[in-house]
């Protein structure tokens, strides 16, 4: 009996220890967002879209733009929390992101940033052949041209279109 208790304590400690390590490796929810979301596409700033958009996106991860993007439920909840906390209608948003999110009608629920009216307007003059080239692949690949998109810097000085050069309006 003594041996049994000892083993279960050991087991308990080891289970706890592994669990502890798991949550500690990403100290903030942002790290988790980068790990789970930005391993496939850019870690789009939560500030671009309102809460209703993020909720809808998180509710349909099993068919996320045609692929299954589900992951651990606890992690999904943590990321949803991060997105809702930083959504465009949760706090004050600045600069280009503010201009974009302000253009979203309160009756619409865009599921991608490229569906935002102001996004479309700002990108309509970009030649199609620039977008479909292999360096870009798609309009949702922000970092291909907005070299500092990761740091939420979307102004003109930070644009360099591969094989096309700088962009001036």
């Amino acid at each position: 009996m003594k041996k049994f208790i000892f083993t279960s304590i050991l087991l308990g400690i080891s289970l706890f220890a592994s669990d502890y390590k798991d949550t500690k490796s990403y100290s903030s929810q942002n790290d988790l967002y980068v790990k789970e979301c930005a391993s496939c596409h850019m870690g789009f700033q939560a500030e671009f879209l309102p809460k209703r958009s993020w909720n809808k996106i998180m509710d349909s991860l099993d068919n996320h733009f045609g692929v299954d993007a589900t992951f651990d439920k606890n992690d999904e909840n943590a990321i949803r929390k991060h997105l809702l906390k930083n959504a465009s209608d949760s706090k004050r948003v600045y600069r280009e992101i503010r201009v974009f999110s302000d253009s979203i009608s309160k009756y619409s629920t865009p599921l991608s940033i490229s569906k935002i009216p102001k996004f479309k307007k700002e990108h309509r003059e970009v030649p199609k052949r620039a977008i479909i080239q292999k360096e870009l692949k798609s309009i949702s690949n922000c970092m291909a041209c907005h070299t500092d998109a990761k740091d939420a810097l979307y102004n003109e000085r930070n644009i360099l279109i591969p094989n096309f050069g700088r962009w001036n309006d």
Partner: protein
Amino acid sequence: MKLIALLLLAFSLSYSSVVTDYLNTLASEAKRVSSDFKIFDKERGKNLFVSKHIGKKGKLVSCVSCHTNNFSQRGEHILTGKIIEPLSPRVNPERLSELRTIKKWLKRNFKDVYRREGTALEKGDVLTYIISKD
């Protein structure tokens, strides 16, 4: 030189223990489902990996469509264009090193190709195929 060899050995042992542990879990699950289960089979795994099915987007796809069948080479996602690092842990040390990542991608990719989650038997077979090529 000796040190490098030792480090390599330690590394290969650590990677294989994650996979071996998971294969053992899958084996006991498979045994529970069917008492006929003996061992995982890389030929069945290969068939799962290369055979084509109507996937999530209504396209005829297999695992090969994105991963290629050369595991020391990079692949490219046929829908999103995402570069997929090699499946071989020998070439890509991060591959098969973390249980939660292995589980996550097996679940997702079965759903993308087979439109359902794989069974324990299927997951074990396909994993056995992947490590057999290393």
